[in-house]
């Protein structure tokens, strides 16, 4: 099964990104938030998001979004099984997005090594404390050269560029 995995913290735009390239509206497993995250988002994904698009030979590429909250991380290894690559979305307006970057790169380390990762930073226009260069520096310190772009998850073109980069790094 061909799967592309979308991960990142709650509110980073995973569900929206999947919806922008999926042939069907993403199947969501949202519930009302009850914790401190409620201030930022009314609904959150507890199991996964799902969408797909069909290739010209009739086969499907499945798009899975991991639950945003870290306490559901037991789901992550199940979802990544057989995946062809990872799209990591980070919310620049989050409390500590650089920590999020490190956390997700470590959490998906094995999967990234086997496949590849592209990173999209959302809401750069909302919060300007961090620039793309700050994220680049974290990656450079870790000796990692991953595609890293400013994106708007609502823009299909931005999401396509993420997928394009993922295809490029998987190819070479």
């Amino acid at each position, binding site marked *: 099964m061909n799967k592309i995995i979308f991960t990142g913290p709650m509110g980073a735009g995973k569900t929206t990104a999947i919806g922008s390239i999926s042939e069907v509206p993403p199947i969501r497993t949202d519930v009302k938030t009850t914790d401190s995250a409620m201030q930022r988002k009314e609904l959150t994904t507890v199991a996964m998001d799902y969408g797909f*698009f069909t290739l010209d030979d009739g086969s499907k590429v499945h798009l899975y979004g991991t639950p945003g909250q870290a306490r559901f991380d037991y789901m992550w290894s199940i979802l990544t099984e057989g995946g062809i690559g990872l799209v990591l979305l980070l919310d620049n307006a989050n409390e500590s997005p650089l920590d999020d970057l490190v956390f997700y790169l470590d959490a998906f380390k094995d999967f990234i090594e086997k496949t590849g990762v592209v990173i999209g930073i959302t809401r750069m226009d909302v919060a300007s404390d961090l620039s793309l260069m700050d994220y680049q520096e974290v990656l450079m310190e870790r000796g990692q050269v991953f595609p890293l772009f400013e994106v708007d998850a609502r823009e299909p073109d931005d999401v396509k560029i993420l997928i394009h980069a993922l295809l490029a790094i998987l190819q070479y």
Partner: protein
Amino acid sequence: MSQTSDLQITVCGVGISDTEKVILRVASGILKEQRKIEILQVAEPQNVTLALIDMDSDTGREYYEEYAKKNKQQYSLLLCQEALDARGARDIVLTKPLRVQVLVEVVDEVKKLEITATNKKDKASFSMSQLPANAVTAEAITAAAENEPAANAPSLFLTLLDAQIKQQAVQIFYSGRRTLFINPCRSILASASPPQVIMGLTREQDSIRIQSVPISQEDFELLAKGHIVTPLNDVLWNSAIFGSRGRLIKELSNKIPVRLKAWPNLTRVDFHPAHMQIAAILGKQALSLDELQQKTQFPIADLAAFLNAAWAVRLLDTHPAPSTGAANTPKGAAKSNLLAKIARRLNISTSSS
């Protein structure tokens, strides 16, 4: 060609604002750099060649009424919010805001009149038809320059690159467009034009001449105040992609391997499908331009433009550690086929041209 002259013009500002003082300073720098004229700024307005008078200030109005109006030897550049009706023979009226390029043109015109007057020993009265009171624009100042041969003219890319290397703030005059203020220390470009227009300029840079002048950080803060800010790296990237003229910059060599330190922000710059592949390759291994061309078969001009752009925005490691070889792992045909199908389905072009 620019005329070289030993003529000195003395200038004094009367009642002008701090911003206008900076504009006078920048204009002086431009004229000096062009070797057109030496402007001496003096504290006392009496007996200067050109008095720059703010007619909206009490000081300026008093000076004009008491002295400048009666002085037949002095040119008066009258700044005001609204055009004045009454003008003396040597008065030049400009509505605010004062622009550097306008001031440069005015001073240059005064210089020509002074030379003529000196030669003829006859200081003819100033013809206002030579200078529209408030309609002198960037087009006017660059019109003459555009008639000059463009071979030695710096491109926008090289001008920005030079500023970036020297970390020097500069002001760029772009024919027919608004002024650009560059601050490499803060990685920003400020202009009255929105980012889309600025990015558009980079695509047509070869057809337009520019002039630039270094400015101080303090001058940048004053001149760029209230302008729209565009990330300098985005403009630098685009200007390299469209302004490299098929050649590597002198800081790079086609034989020396280089590697990407980080990916460029391809969602916010003009993006070519080939860039994705080049970045994917150079993100994993160090290659020279020649090796890269062999591997990708992409045109040298496209590869050189990418490398120039990556170097300009400091994403290129020119002394990389030896590659591990992991990047050369061949991908299975099935996987390549799948990736190609996904690209087709999402209308992602992967061709080099």
